[in-house]
């Protein structure tokens, strides 16, 4: 006589104490590495009272930094939307030679250190740079001025919109666009009436991530900014200056604004993710395509790798 084996469910699931221990360990790790840094920002910001907090935020230099941050993001995000849509249209709706290489090149800014992103623009547009003498002759300044900050921001955010749009547009296939074409729609009509409505959540997702990075970028902007207070300081750079001047409460007050932005970003991202999950099937062929949409990186990039 053999003892009856335990039911299957208990053998594919850990005992309760193991589960509780693992949950506890995971939450402790996340608490130490995520929650504490977030909490300390607000605690330090309000350490010296609400008056100091509000004064630090309402200070003219802080407001100027906020304006420049909004300007840089205001240029970088729409530009990346336009480029991202163009890239996704060509990469997701057509098959062409060099496709995989192009896809890798679009992702390239993600692997470049932000400091190097700043450096290369100094090499191009700095006084000793390729275009330096020409810019000087025409009394234009790019590096250590606002245009350089915008350029560096565009560089570091370059892949965000495109990499969200490409897998989504690929998974949706081309049937709907082709149908619209056969029925006589022009290219712009197809884009406006068929493609954009289908990818609107993926586009929004990319815009949210792109915007968060654009407003928070530090390394690249730090290199190309001249650190001129009230002129070429973005919010992150303003935080650095305040912090290095031992105005800790003021630095954390400004930092708390960006931390709030981060929380809003996470909330918006979670909401959009839910929408993406619930997105209704797009075409008749959707059930079969849905599986490929699951692997967001379904795009074939093997050519470069192998």
């Amino acid at each position, binding site marked *: 006589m053999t003892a009856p084996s335990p039911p299957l469910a208990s053998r594919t699931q850990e005992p309760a104490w193991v589960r509780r221990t693992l949950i506890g360990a995971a939450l402790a790790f996340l608490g130490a590495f*995520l929650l504490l840094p977030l909490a300390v920002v607000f605690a330090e910001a309000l350490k010296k009272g609400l008056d100091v907090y509000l004064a630090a935020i309402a200070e003219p230099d802080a407001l100027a930094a906020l304006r420049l941050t909004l300007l840089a993001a205001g240029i970088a995000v729409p530009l990346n939307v336009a480029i991202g849509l163009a890239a996704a249209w060509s990469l997701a709706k057509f098959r062409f030679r060099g496709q995989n290489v192009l896809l890798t090149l679009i992702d390239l800014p993600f*692997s470049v*250190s932000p400091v190097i992103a700043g450096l290369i623009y100094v090499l191009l547009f700095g006084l000793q740079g390729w275009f330096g003498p020409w810019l000087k002759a025409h009394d234009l300044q790019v590096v250590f001025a606002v245009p350089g900050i915008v350029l560096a921001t565009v560089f570091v955010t370059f892949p965000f919109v495109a990499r969200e749009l490409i897998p989504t547009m690929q998974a949706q296939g081309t049937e709907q666009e082709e149908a619209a074409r056969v029925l006589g729609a022009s290219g712009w009509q197809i884009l406006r009436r068929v493609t954009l409505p289908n990818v609107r959540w993926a586009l929004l997702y990319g815009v949210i991530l792109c915007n968060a990075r654009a407003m928070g970028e530090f390394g690249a902007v730090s290199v190309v900014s001249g650190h001129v207070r009230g002129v070429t300081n973005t919010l992150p750079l303003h935080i650095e200056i305040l912090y290095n001047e031992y105005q800790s409460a003021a630095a954390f007050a400004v930092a708390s604004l960006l931390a709030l932005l981060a929380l809003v970003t996470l909330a918006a991202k979670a909401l959009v993710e839910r929408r993406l999950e619930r997105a209704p099937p797009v075409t008749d062929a959707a059930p079969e395509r849905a599986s490929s949409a699951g692997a967001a990186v379904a795009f074939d*990039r093997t050519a470069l790798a192998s």
Partner: protein
Amino acid sequence: MASPAALAPAGVRRAPARARGPLSRALLTRTSVLPGFDLSLGITLFALGLIVLLPLSAAFAKTATMSWPAFVGAAFSPRVLASYRLTFGASLAAASVNAAFGLLVTWVLVRYPFPGRRIVDALIDLPFALPTAVAGIALTALYADNGWVGRWLALAGIQVAYTPLGVFVALTFIGLPFVVRTVQPVLQDLPREVEEAAATLGANRAQVFMRVILPALAPALLTGFALAFARALGEYGSVIFIAGNLPMVSEIAPLLIVTKLEQYDYAGATAIAVVLLLAAFTLLLAINALQAWARRREAA
């Protein structure tokens, strides 16, 4: 309402009249009725060239003007070598910790329902959303001798802020989401039947995890590790506040680039940048290969 028949001839007509642009003729491997290939690819290539490729090539062109001894002197001086050791060492340690705890966090998030799971899941991306400068000063405040965590560590004689350990802490924070976000979809899609089959055949839970689950997650886990490592190599904002930035001890390579730039040593800064870029590109190729491996695994 126009009848489809009335509209059909316009579409059925193959479009020989409409001239295809040069990009279409040269590159397309499959003809398409959709318009806009030349325009969209043209915009993409133009933007990519102007914003990404031309500036990056400036770095390589700049080092090409240096003599070999000058390049080696700038890119491999003792102080720079020490910064590589710290950058690569701390990045490797941080990515390893991220791989281990990332796997744990992913497992808990996917397999165990607990209250607040959705919020925890959303919070994972905090290091992506929080500006690095904010992360930097927050971690410094936390781990300084009078900080919430630092004061307890100080009792044990451990100093984190302003030491190489601080670099490791900052890089761990920065790389945290990568492993979770690469492993999560794979673990979600892992069929439970495979585990049940292994259990039916007599494997205990530990064997199932080591022999069935872990091999299935390995490509994603390695990809996440490589992504976290690559991100840590170039990280600047979150590190410089907590590192102390002591030459030869707690100075990371990206900071050395900034230091050289501030001394107007453009060639020296670029030499270090090129070394880091080559490391980053090598990692990018490795990550691409890993993802290809993961997809083949998935297809099999």
